[in-house]
């Protein structure tokens, strides 16, 4: 496959893109279209599978194989495809409602099995396609069409959820930060197994500027805690230390560099990545960005197909005639 040299244009389908003007999905699409040629894979071996929601229109705009499926079920469909076709590279495109509400069950099970799926979760903290109801990542008290005096639900933290579901690769990025998102896509693709990238994505119509704190030039430097493997975890103004067994964000001026937690994305202990994920909540004061966790565990479809190969190597390929005549038989003359 080394002779495949494709460009962004090769991955752009002839379909007119139909998101609202200013939607964060545009920049994610553009970044993904630019990123795909770097995989060096033929287009026909790449499949995008989505559920329902604004983000799930994504596959139509990519010149690869693709299924725009039904609400929440993309990981299930993708799992069946991945297990029976381990030769394919499969991306799942989903949103906060699709992945964490109606499809929560499929997401957690795909992650625990470690099926070779790259799951891009566009989190805009709102239901867009159904025109503005609160989502499972909306902050408590959110006023929407379905919660006129404020929502009562406690939101999910998608990173915490994924780590709790035994995910082997979990990262966070931002729709408009092409460079960072590209890095995350590359790392996820290099990972053997399921990879979840939460992408903060702006919905200009129903939840505009929900992520302004991590985008505005004035605030983002202080807000974003950069997760870089082997490097102390810090923003421009703050850093992360361990205190009484817990992680804590402190002003850099109050501690020395040597006291900061040095990031280890390969830490086998999930409680480390989980602790990192708890540093940010709805209010986005301090937001870790980057790869929270990247650990090695056998990939599911490889194991499924290995079991079959092992049985055949040991007992030989199945013989239909002897299967049908297995057990007690008798002859009628």
């Amino acid at each position: 496959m080394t002779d495949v040299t494709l460009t962004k244009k090769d991955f752009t389908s002839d379909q007119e893109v139909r998101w609202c003007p200013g939607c964060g999905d545009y920049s994610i699409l553009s970044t993904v279209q630019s990123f795909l040629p770097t995989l060096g894979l033929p287009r026909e071996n790449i499949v995008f599978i989505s559920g329902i929601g604004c983000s799930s229109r994504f596959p139509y705009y990519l010149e690869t194989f693709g299924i725009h499926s039904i609400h929440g079920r993309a990981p299930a469909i993708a799992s069946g495809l991945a297990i029976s076709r381990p030769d394919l590279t499969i991306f799942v495109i989903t949103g906060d409602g699709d992945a964490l509400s109606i499809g929560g069950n499929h997401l957690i099970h795909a992650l625990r099995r470690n099926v070779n799926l790259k799951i891009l979760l566009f989190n805009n903290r709102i239901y867009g396609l159904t025109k503005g109801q609160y989502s499972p990542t909306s902050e408590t008290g959110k006023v929407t069409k379905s919660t006129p005096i404020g929502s009562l639900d406690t939101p999910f933290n998608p990173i915490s959820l994924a780590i709790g579901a035994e995910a082997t690769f979990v990262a966070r990025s931002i729709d408009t930060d092409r460079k960072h998102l590209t890095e995350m896509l590359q790392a996820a693709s290099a990972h053997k197994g399921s990879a979840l990238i939460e992408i903060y994505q702006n919905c200009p119509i129903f939840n505009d500027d929900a992520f302004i704190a991590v985008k505005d030039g004035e605030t983002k430097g202080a807000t974003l805690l950069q997760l870089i493997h082997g490097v102390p975890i810090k923003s421009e103004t703050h850093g992360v230390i361990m205190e009484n067994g817990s992680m804590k964000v402190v002003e850099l001026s109050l501690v020395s560099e040597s006291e900061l937690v040095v990031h280890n994305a390969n830490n086998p202990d999930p409680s480390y990545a989980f602790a990192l994920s708890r540093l940010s909540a709805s209010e986005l004061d301090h937001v870790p960005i980057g790869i929270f966790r990247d650990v090695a565990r056998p990939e599911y479809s490889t194991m499924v197909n290995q079991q079959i190969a092992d049985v055949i190597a040991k007992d030989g390929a199945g013989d239909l005639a002897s299967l049908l005549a297995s057990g007690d038989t008798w002859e009628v003359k």
Partner: protein
Amino acid sequence: MSKTVVPLHQVSIRFAGDSGDGMQLTGDRFTMDTAILGNDISTLPNFPAEIRAPQGTLLGVSSFQLHFADHHIQTPGDAPDVLVAMNPAALKANIKDLAKGATIIVDADEFITRNLTKVGYVTNPLEDGSLDGYKVHPIALTTLTVATLSELNLSRKDAERSKNMFALGLLTWMYSRPTETTEKFLTGKFAKKPDLLEANLLAFKAGWNFGETTEEFSVSYQIAPAKMPAGKYRNVSGNTALSYGLIAAAKQSGLQLFLGSYPITPASDILHELSKHKKFGVITFQAEDEIAAVGSALGAAYGGAIGVTSTSGPGLALKAEMIGLGVMLELPLIVIDVQRGGPSTGLPTKTEQADLLQAMYGRNGESPVVVIAPSTPKDCFAMAMEAVRIATTYRVPVFILSDGYIANGSEPWRIPGEGELPDLRVEFAHTEENFMPYSRDPKTLARPWAIPGTKGIEHRIGGVEKADQTGAISYDPTNHDFMVRTRAAKVAGVQVPDLEVDDATGDAQVLLLGWGSTFGPIAAAVEALRENGQKVAQAHLKYINPFPKNLGAVLDRYERVIVPEMNLGQLAMLLRAQFLKDITGYNQVRGLPFSTTEIIEATMAVLSD
């Protein structure tokens, strides 16, 4: 003492005991020993949903009925000639079903006050004369078994557990069955537990010897082999036959078999069976829920595998939306529904045919699927291959409606040679310029099966309505109307064999028309009616959507059409709607297959109407 051997034409035996007494195993073993003698056989396992219901209660009674004969038979028999009852509960739960003058063998040790009271016997039925019309053999099965095993180093509890083998040995003697197959079976089953192997073998032999020597039994019986077409035979249940049919279809098509399933009674045995056969390249995926089970099957089908999901009614309800996506994506998908009593959780271990309309219409929108229904346990093999043929030819979801009766019931099956199996090879879409994912084969109306990995035909499909030919999203009113009608026409045009009518004299005025698992009891009833000089025709629908092309003409030929079904008239409703034909329904939803007598009586009522 020399004993008389009496020849019989047929016998129906029911083994009954606590759900922990091993009655299913006992029945299975007797079935195998009987099959090897060449008798025709039909079986009916019947067990509670609880794994270990409270001991000694009516709720906990598990039974296995076996009918065997020197001629072709269709059902497990309406009224058993022999009941083996391991306790008072088993006697009480089954006595009403027995034939007049039936033989009853009971474990007399269990007929103590505590056990009698538990099931509401005020007096001991073995002593109060209430069983006077029957040939009762009270045998101290527990005491005899424990005494047999006294030399072994076993707890009393473990020793008692072998009493089912004592009973099996006794019946094996009584009906002149061979002992070798059960001995071989036990040797395999307890290979790693020599203590239990010895106990079971000893109990089995002791039961046989007890029959041979005791004066309790003066006669034994023989049933000659039935006349069956020449060939190699085995006994097969519906779930096993269905699993084998799918494996055979995978071989005949050259495709990989992928089963996505979530455990549910009475379909789980299909998952268990297929999980054993990895050397055929079969992938089984126990999904997180029913939706993921069918979703994974659809995903595998998209990749070019035979995607199958197996479930029962409640699971089918959950799968509905994904099957609708299968209709829209026009991919091959096999949906197996082993029906059970409903609605809701209903009767998990009991049979019913009440999912027909759910299969036909249980989705949003105009969502046509193919529906087929095997008629007997062994027919599940051929119908599984039919499902694959139709799904891969027309690229459409195909339902196989089995049910608890034929799924767990078994019968002898002549093993087909590989030359008898159909050619199921398929063709995937090839690389081409301007590939149109929703172009159609003019004959079948199938769209191309265009799998990932094929260069130059990258395309996107989805659940949103698609433009004809291109498959792009389309909200165009005319296009939607066209696509809805095209999907309907595709399913309506599926080629299925004509309906065969068995009208012995050619001038019957009443037709008995069944579908699915009711074949056995209907056929037995028709046989009996004809022996009585009645003129009745029989036909059986294995293809329900689409119906056979000649069905309308067949219905027109008869003055009265009786449709027995284990629901409140679902096939009758479809027939009335499509053919404007008056149908006489005969309906029961008791969780049990029809008895032959019931159908005879229902037919006589119409004949004399």
